[in-house]
């Protein structure tokens, strides 16, 4: 589980397209090829994304997951979300509104399952959390 590791935020350029991929790969590959890589891609400047760019995201994700890490996306503009949906990869990534939220998600305990009101009595729910943390 990638917890309390150094999170690297990578700001992506305006165009994540075929012609810009070689330069981008040179920067991304060292980040993804460490133990437990925790990566956040900041999409706030991205205006253009093509199939090659989507493939880079998937390859980075694959590399990170192979090393017990994760890749999360932040500040993705609506037009880029449209591309991610079109290429059916939106459901493979966790997408956050801001980089801070994405970074926090690496540090916080994965308690999303407990966000919803539990049907169990309070005491037993606390016990479960305790067991899980132990």
């Amino acid at each position, binding site marked *: 589980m990638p917890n309390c590791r150094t999170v690297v935020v990578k700001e992506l350029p305006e165009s994540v*397209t*075929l012609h810009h*991929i*070689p330069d981008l*790969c*040179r920067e*991304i*590959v060292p980040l993804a090829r460490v133990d437990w890589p925790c990566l956040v891609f900041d999409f706030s400047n991205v*205006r*253009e994304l*093509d*199939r*090659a760019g*989507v*493939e*880079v995201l*998937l*390859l980075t994700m*694959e*590399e990170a997951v192979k090393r017990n890490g994760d890749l999360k996306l932040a500040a993705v503009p*609506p*037009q880029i*979300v*449209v*591309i991610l*949906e*079109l*290429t*059916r*990869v939106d*459901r*493979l990534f966790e997408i956050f509104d801001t980089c801070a939220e994405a970074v926090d998600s690496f540090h916080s305990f994965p308690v999303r399952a407990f966000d919803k009101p539990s049907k169990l009595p309070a005491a037993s729910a606390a016990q479960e959390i305790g067991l899980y943390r132990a």
Partner: protein
Amino acid sequence: MQVSAVLVVDDRCLSSTASNAELAYTGRSDNKSRSVACSEIFGESLLTRTVKQLRGAGIETISVVGASIYPLSKFGAGITRVAAARSCECWSEAQREVLRLKAQGSQTVLMIGVSAYVEWQVEELLRFHFAHGMPLTQVHDAQGPLEIWAVNSKWFSTAAVGCTLPFRYGEFPGLPVACIIGGYVNRLADAAGFRRLVRDGFLARSETRPLCKEIRPGVWVEDGARIHKSARLVAPVYIGAGAKIGASAVITRFSNVERNSTVGAGTVVDSASILSDTELGAGLELSGTVLEGNMLLDVRRNVALCIHDPNLIRDIGARYQPAIPSRRQIERSMQAFAFSDSGFFFRAAGRLSEVLFR
């Protein structure tokens, strides 16, 4: 009484109404037939439908004023095409055209701005216009005025010379007289409006219902369409003439694939409109969108997106065709990852399809 018509077609596109229209316009393919008036719905454009309606009402002298060349080959005879230098000059050209028609003997001219889908009766408007004896009548619906006028050409050539078109209230006292209609109206103000019109056509709420062969209940396929045997068409859908649907593609939920468009293998088209001469790549998912050439309009977010990657979406009607990067080119650009096979993208998409459509 001689009646003629002047149709004014501007270059307004659906993408011009999106929230990021200015940004999206950069790199848009140069295809003039992408205006709202020329966008086909179930094989017929707004312009063609209007011409057909006027011909049905016995109006033979029709002028089409626009800045582009529009496909009206079926109605070539009797139609005068008037080219405006720019889209904003269409109405001033229309003004000159009315004067020309008056000189030819037309007493009443119907001026129509072809930008909204309106179900109205020509005879009803003319009857109303003549009964009131006023020189200018405008069609209204419950939401307000529409760009359809009946004009007395004699009055136009004398009292109205120099007025700015389209006609506005207050320019002439008591004019235009409002003729209220109760038929179906869709102003096609944005991509959502366009999708609503398609949906209403399928549900027979409007007269835009597909007229071609219904191969199964709710599945309309025009002659010349090629559908792979493993493709799934889930009603209601429409496939236009010359369209190609690839292997394992799924077309569903009020989707229309118009003339000469292509849907790649394994692509899912759900609640979307693919306008004519558009190529959609393989392994994609299109939901709640309108595709016009290389422009993608997301109805939910109201954003337009110009896609330059021909592997995803391509305007096959455009004069300029960007080169499609080969698989080898993509692989070469990703050599830093040192993968012998970079088909992960397709593998991931394939696995997801298996899970979703099991």
